[in-house]
């Protein structure tokens, strides 16, 4: 119930934060929203010697449009995503997903960057980022680099983010008109992680699916991009039968860990069912229903 001792730092700029990470290396952890890290520290499962609190770095917050892209600061809270009229109009899957994360209080502190960078397969934003073909700006002592979401996740709690780097921004291109999106998350109760969840971003032109991006949450060691499922739909008129086939493909990709949310069989089937529902809803929304 009480964390072990640590040294606390509250840098006011990204450069200062990186300097601290470079200085302390593995002994340091970033404090973003804190609702993953602090509970772990209270249970003494995590015992960093240094906490680098980046909540005071204003340049890391905010949502803006830039040359048609949407750019989101990593320290933007889930609640800010939900309230953003820009996102509601231009990328509704993000506020939709944010509203399914945790509870109202947690969403005031939890950040999109924390959810993306933590590496917990149960986090929701990684799958959303994959489905949006988003890229992440990682800044370190040697400068900044861009990494696409689909490359970022290497394993459970294991990403391309180095110990002396900070995720500063998330960027993705505009959604074409006639794009419908949906995030379907099955959970045991409000506030729980996903038993299984699927994101679908589907562009329909006339009757035909121009592009489909489908990704899965908590059905493997990382979020998963279901390319084989996408291939079933792309260039086709989407029928119930095709949706089923896509769901089957998604299920083939699933490699969930059995836990108190369900065994492998259940979670895999639920991955399929959430995929079905995400595609169906995305298609309905693309047609303006």
């Amino acid at each position: 119930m009480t964390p072990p001792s640590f040294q606390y730092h509250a840098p006011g700029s990204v450069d200062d934060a990186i300097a601290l990470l470079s200085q302390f290396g593995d002994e340091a952890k970033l404090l973003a929203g804190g609702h993953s890290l602090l509970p772990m520290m209270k249970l003494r499962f995590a015992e960093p010697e240094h906490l680098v609190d980046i909540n005071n770095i204003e340049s890391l917050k905010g949502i803006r449009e830039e040359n048609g892209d949407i750019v989101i600061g990593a320290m933007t809270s889930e609640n800010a995503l939900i309230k953003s009229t820009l996102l509601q109009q231009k990328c509704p899957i993000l506020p939709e997903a944010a509203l399914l994360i945790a509870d109202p209080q947690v969403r005031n502190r939890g950040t999109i960057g924390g959810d993306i960078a933590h590496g917990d397969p149960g986090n929701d934003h990684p799958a959303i980022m994959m489905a949006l073909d988003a890229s992440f700006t990682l800044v370190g002592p040697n400068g900044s680099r861009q990494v696409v979401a689909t490359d970022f996740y290497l394993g459970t709690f294991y990403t391309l983010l180095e110990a002396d780097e900070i995720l500063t921004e998330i960027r993705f291109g505009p959604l074409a008109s006639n794009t419908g999106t949906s995030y379907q998350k099955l959970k045991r109760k409000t506030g729980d992680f996903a038993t299984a969840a699927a994101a679908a971003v589907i562009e329909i032109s006339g009757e035909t699916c121009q592009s489909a991006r489908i990704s899965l949450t908590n059905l493997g060691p990382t979020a998963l991009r279901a390319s084989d499922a996408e291939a079933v739909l792309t260039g086709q008129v989407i029928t119930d039968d095709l949706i089923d086939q896509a769901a089957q493909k998604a299920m083939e990709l699933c490699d969930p860990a059995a836990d108190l949310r369900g065994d492998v069989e259940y979670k895999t089937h639920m991955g399929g069912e959430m995929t079905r529902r995400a595609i169906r809803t995305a298609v309905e929304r693309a047609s303006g229903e």
Partner: protein
Amino acid sequence: MSKTQVSFSLNGQAVEVMVEPRELLIHVMRDQLRQTGSHIGCETSHCGACTVDFNGESVKSCTLLAVQAQGAEVMTVEGLAVNGELHPLQQAFMDEHGLQCGYCTPGMLMRSYRFLLENPDPSEAEIRAGMSGNLCRCTGYQNIVKSIQKAAAAINASGRDEASTA
């Protein structure tokens, strides 16, 4: 571990405490500042009994370090009544039997306080979604929902100025 000074505003009063970085805001408020209205019900940030208003947002004070409160405006249940006059929510919870053992009540009051400021005319479904970060074992929530509905009506009837004590 050496202590550092943290200054913030608690229920409109300036306070200063000496804390280790690891001390949680809930512990500092309860043990050092003797404001024991906010409660602890878990250690995994689920139950919401510790909910306070922090810079205009509902936050679980068990998941904030006291050092993070530097310069902040914090309101707890002890600050809801103004000059002895109960907030409409406090009155409504009594009118509608929205509490039994009282342990979740401060968190419910502080969360619903901010919730109604953000959504002054909520539907029942919105109230339930808005309060989903606060657990109760006694009431089954139904009278808590009624209490919030009653308070919303009272606040709206008397004009918005009454609602915010900030």
